[in-house]
């Protein structure tokens, strides 16, 4: 977290982009957008543009990484070179390696891995345009891609961050807020079981502020979960509806 001295992030009780303290940026998700992958989702969240794809379950290579009793969920978070103002050198760095690990662990919690011993479920997250909150966006999109790939899971993970700017606890930090704010707390949330599967924090918060931030995030994750569900309904319900009509018309004949 940078210093908050040099830039005003709040004016007249609103944030620079006009949002209220507890307001999310706009989020849209499309499911099933890639042909080759077994499942995929494209997400836009504010100015973030993120593609997620799932391959598997498939045989784990290298073999020594196989688990004999369950599948391994292996996420790979990657930023396109042109996704940020200063060109990102292709290939993994420490930041993306850590995010990949945390996302893998968060998703493994909801996937019924015991159904597929010795296999791997590969999750690829490609950030095409980054504007604060890409790990949350990536995890949110990846959950939809997993469901789209027909992977058995107990729920979809919804993810969002809250933080502190100019002493105020706010939801879903934008780019300037992330750069010049005082704290950032990304979380991954499993609505059905009310559990946290990703939690990071950096900056400075009192316990009271932490609680306020978490309550905001959890509420927001419930809304995000609805957007995730909407994306899948949009993708699959029309098919079902058409099938229904077809069957009905056959029944009448």
């Amino acid at each position, binding site marked *: 977290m940078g210093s908050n001295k040099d830039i005003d992030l709040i004016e007249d009780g609103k944030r620079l982009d006009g949002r209220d303290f507890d307001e999310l940026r706009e989020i849209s998700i499309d499911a099933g957008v890639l042909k080759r992958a077994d499942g995929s989702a494209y997400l836009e969240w504010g100015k973030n543009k993120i593609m997620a794809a799932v391959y598997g379950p498939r045989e784990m290579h290298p073999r020594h990484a196989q688990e004999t009793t369950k599948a391994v969920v292996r996420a790979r978070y990657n930023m396109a*070179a042109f996704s940020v103002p200063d060109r990102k050198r292709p290939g993994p760095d420490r930041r993306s390696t850590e995010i990949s690990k945390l996302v893998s662990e968060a998703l493994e919690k909801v996937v019924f891995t015991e159904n597929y011993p010795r296999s791997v479920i590969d999750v690829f997250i490609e950030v095409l*345009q980054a504007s604060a909150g890409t790990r949350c966006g990536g995890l949110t999109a990846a959950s939809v891609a997993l469901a789209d790939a027909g992977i058995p899971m107990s729920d979809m993970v919804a993810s969002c961050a809250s933080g502190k700017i100019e002493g105020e606890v706010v939801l879903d930090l934008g780019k300037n807020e992330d750069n010049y704010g005082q704290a950032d707390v990304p979380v991954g949330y499993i609505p059905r079981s009310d559990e946290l599967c990703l939690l990071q924090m950096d900056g400075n918060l009192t316990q009271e502020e932490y609680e306020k931030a978490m309550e905001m995030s959890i509420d927001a994750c419930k809304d995000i979960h609805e957007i995730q569900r909407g994306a899948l309904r949009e993708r699959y319900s029309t098919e079902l509806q058409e099938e229904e009509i077809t069957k009905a018309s056959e029944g009448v004949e």
Partner: protein
Amino acid sequence: MKEMLSKITEDYLYRLIKEEKRIDDRDMFEYRDMEMEVGQIEPAEGSARVKLGDTDVIVGTKMEVGDPYPDTPESGVLTTAAELIPMASPEYESGPPGEDATELARVVDRGIREGDAVDTTELCIEKGEKVWVMFIDIHVLDFDGNLLDAAGIGAMAALIDTEVPASDFEEAEKEEDYSLPIEHTVVPVTFTKIKDQLILDSRLEEEKIADARLTISLNEENEIVAMQKGLRGVFDYESTKECINKAKEITSETREKVLNACDRENL
């Protein structure tokens, strides 16, 4: 992991080709639906997303101020890189670019460089001291054949879309951003050879049985600026001439689409 076609499917594809037919009912020299979106990636100086059927490629350009090469002190620096990320195909693996990614980047690079698509002398800020360094990054999202054309077309569109970010760099000694000086519009076209038949815009299955391919990049004056024969098969000299003749017509249509997508009538 390599994916394999069954022998009977291979035989079917050969039979089709022999009767001058395609799996998707296209003519031998017809592109799949070509969709282009330009300028969608804000942090990029220029960008284009090209879809050829199910093949989906994003090309973005980034610029910064840096050192010129000692042997070209008055020229900006161009670098092209490609990533065949495992999202795009079960056959791609994570890790540094392999042979295919490197060839892809170099063929696209050659067309742009040798075709003088960009006037690199205009990218010199101070002779021998500082110049604009430009990165062209090719990001493949979904792979269903013919990456060379999708990437090459995307790269040209991204260049046309590029705004030099002069206002972000004090060293640039200019206060306002300006459009990248484009000298020529270079467009590639790739012919795939299966047995003795040439086809345009091969799909994945067709590439699996392809003997050879020939990529030809042309500028708007129909001058040949780059060529690349790929794969283990061969071409006879006559058929390369046939390819060049066809390439003129095909690339001029593609060029029009690129300019339309970039909202330019001409350059």
